[in-house]
């Protein structure tokens, strides 16, 4: 009698919870399996990385999967640093990045390809009450001094000299920078490095740099984080990808004119990006890892870059490789992903034909 009571209590105490846990595990397993069955024989591709490229991928994926229902592409905005590292580790099939891989990193991972999919720009934005519609003029050296804490106030002489006649506020500058590994940081610090030797010799460029400590500075994650930080903090300055220009205009932030290689001040527009691209694309090597920053020419916008897909040329299955080749071929085609209607929406520039050819050669290597 006592024995049977005990066995009942053991039953209730251990077996029932165990059964519950087991049931839960089985249930979720079945759910995952049925989910996998739904996608059928097609491929499941994961894209992760650049928040600058993310808005474009979100336009591309529905358009592409409509005509390719057996391919499922998941997109994530995690930052170019994550894009590169997860593509290298094989977690993501497509690593989106505004930065190409470094020589040393590529030497370690020889099978990785850096394939340009489009050309983008970066804006320098500011939040100055009353001046946000005036397109302040800024230069690389002045920005370098702001981000080093040497130019502290908006009415500093170096800013005033670039903007004669503009009534600048006597307020401290709040520089905002990215804290995640970021392609935007990469291209912004390249502009500073190429235009301001002092920055180029000390801090240099990268997806992460050692930002000098500046009183009041803010760190933000992703382009959306940069927008929130500059919107919430009057007197801030930030660098934000041009695919967020609509959001910038909605929030009423200012877009700066930047001084280019020839000393002219230009706004990020299709015209100025085209001018810069026309000068730089001829320098693109076969593996397409090249900086387009600080292009010569009176009309050239100084911060343009290739938007890269970081992909392993050796895919685990022929089906995945075929799906990737097909998607990328569509993406760089002027009648597919590089069509005007996509580019205009995110303020990108389509790949010139010579670069599209180089990208196509790299796409063919995915096996």
């Amino acid at each position, binding site marked *: 009698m006592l024995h049977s009571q005990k066995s009942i209590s053991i039953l209730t105490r251990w077996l029932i919870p165990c059964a519950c846990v087991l049931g839960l595990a089985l249930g979720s397993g079945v759910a995952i399996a049925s989910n996998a069955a739904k996608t059928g024989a097609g491929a499941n591709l994961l894209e992760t990385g650049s928040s600058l490229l993310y808005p474009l991928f979100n336009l591309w994926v529905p358009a592409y999967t409509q005509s390719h229902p057996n391919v499922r592409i998941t997109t994530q905005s*995690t*930052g170019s*640093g*994550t894009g*590169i*590292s*997860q593509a*290298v*580790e094989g977690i993501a099939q497509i690593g989106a990045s505004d930065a190409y891989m*470094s*020589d*040393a*990193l590529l*030497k*370690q991972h020889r099978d990785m390809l850096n394939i340009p999919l489009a050309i983008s720009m970066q804006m320098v934005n500011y939040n100055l009450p009353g001046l946000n519609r005036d397109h302040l003029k800024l230069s690389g050296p002045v920005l370098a001094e702001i981000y080093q804490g040497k130019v502290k106030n908006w009415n500093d002489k170096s800013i005033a000299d670039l903007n004669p006649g503009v009534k600048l506020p006597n307020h*401290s500058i*709040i520089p905002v920078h990215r*804290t*995640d*590994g970021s392609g935007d940081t990469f291209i912004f610090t390249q502009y500073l490095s190429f235009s301001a030797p002092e920055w180029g010799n000390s801090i*240099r*460029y*990268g*997806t*992460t*740099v*050692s*930002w000098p*400590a500046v*009183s*009041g500075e*803010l*760190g933000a*994650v992703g382009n959306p984080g940069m927008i929130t*930080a500059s919107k*919430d*903090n009057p007197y801030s300055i930030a660098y934000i990808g041009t695919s967020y220009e609509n959001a910038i205009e909605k929030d009423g932030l200012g877009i700066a004119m930047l001084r280019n290689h020839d000393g002219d001040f230009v706004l990020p527009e299709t015209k100025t990006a085209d001018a810069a691209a026309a000068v730089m694309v001829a320098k693109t090597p076969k593996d397409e890892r090249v900086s387009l920053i600080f292009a010569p020419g009176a009309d050239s916008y100084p911060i343009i870059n290739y938007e890269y897909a970081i992909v392993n040329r050796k895919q685990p299955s022929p089906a995945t490789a075929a799906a990737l080749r097909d998607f990328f071929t569509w993406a760089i085609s002027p009648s597919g992903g590089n069509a005007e209607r996509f580019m205009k929406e995110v303020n990108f520039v389509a790949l010139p034909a010579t670069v599209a050819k180089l990208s196509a050669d790299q796409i063919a290597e995915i096996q």
Partner: protein
Amino acid sequence: MSSASLVSSDRLRWRRISRAASFRSLTALSACLVGLVLVLIILFLALYAWPAVQLNGAGFLTQNNWNLGNLYGNPVTVHGQTILPGAQYGILFLIAGTLLSTAIALLIAVPFGVASAMFLSEGVPPPMRPWISFFVELLAAIPSVVYGLWGYVVVIPFLGHYVFPFVVRWLGFIPFLGGPSGSGYGLFTAGFVLSLMIVPLITATLRDALVEQPRELREGAMALGATRFEALWTVLLPAVRRVLTGATILATGRALGETMAVLMVSGNALNYLPGNIYTPISTMASFIVSQLDSALQDPTGMAVRSLAEVALVLCLISIVVNALARVLLYYQGHQVQRAF
């Protein structure tokens, strides 16, 4: 009694003994495995971080210069280690951020935790007590990322736009409360969100201990003319002092290692020490998460090894806190015994 039944009862007894022995060895094995895992993790961390320890030396703990170096340069050899040109690793700002945010959390959480435990054990009408303590325990079960999200959406704008400017204006003369009030992200916000996460830990533990104190203690105090509050304050609370210390240490451990919530509200400062309570900070745990992807792009691997060294330091700090707590409990135990 027949001999047959004797044999069978012997066999039964032997079976019970052997079952007890195998149960004992099974539990012993589990206990050893738990200890082994702890040792192996520390050993792995130490071995993995060793090249970074050699490279960074003592400067790792005393300098504010976390710098991955020139990510696009060619690796160079320094002190026998291959690193990126210009790479340096010093995490004083992380140690400061971790300890200061935990200290602020404790400063807020301990008084609130004690007060709410006192009210829940004495002030609430008995029929409602189980419900209210159930509620407090639920608070402790909320995942930390939820606190982080709430801190991000609600606390930061509120503190940054209303509270901090107000405090700077009226209490700015107090050290560390003056100066620029910042944006809401920072040391105090991190400490505040942490304190909300650890108050339930302290309250729930302390309330249980207060309720379980023998009736005689309360009755004795009241017989001597103490009011209900005096009985609680002078007799019951000192009796649960050890429990309070223990709960505070558990809470400290949680605050030191908390990652997500802090990551979302701390402002993720790099390479500088906070000048006041509004300054952005980073903590060791959140830094490991936020910098791992960047570190993975260092082809020499030194950045990830240095992150492992951060983890090692965090482990050591937690172990030291726990050890200090044990010592404290030991001495308190002696005092309590003497008092009786």
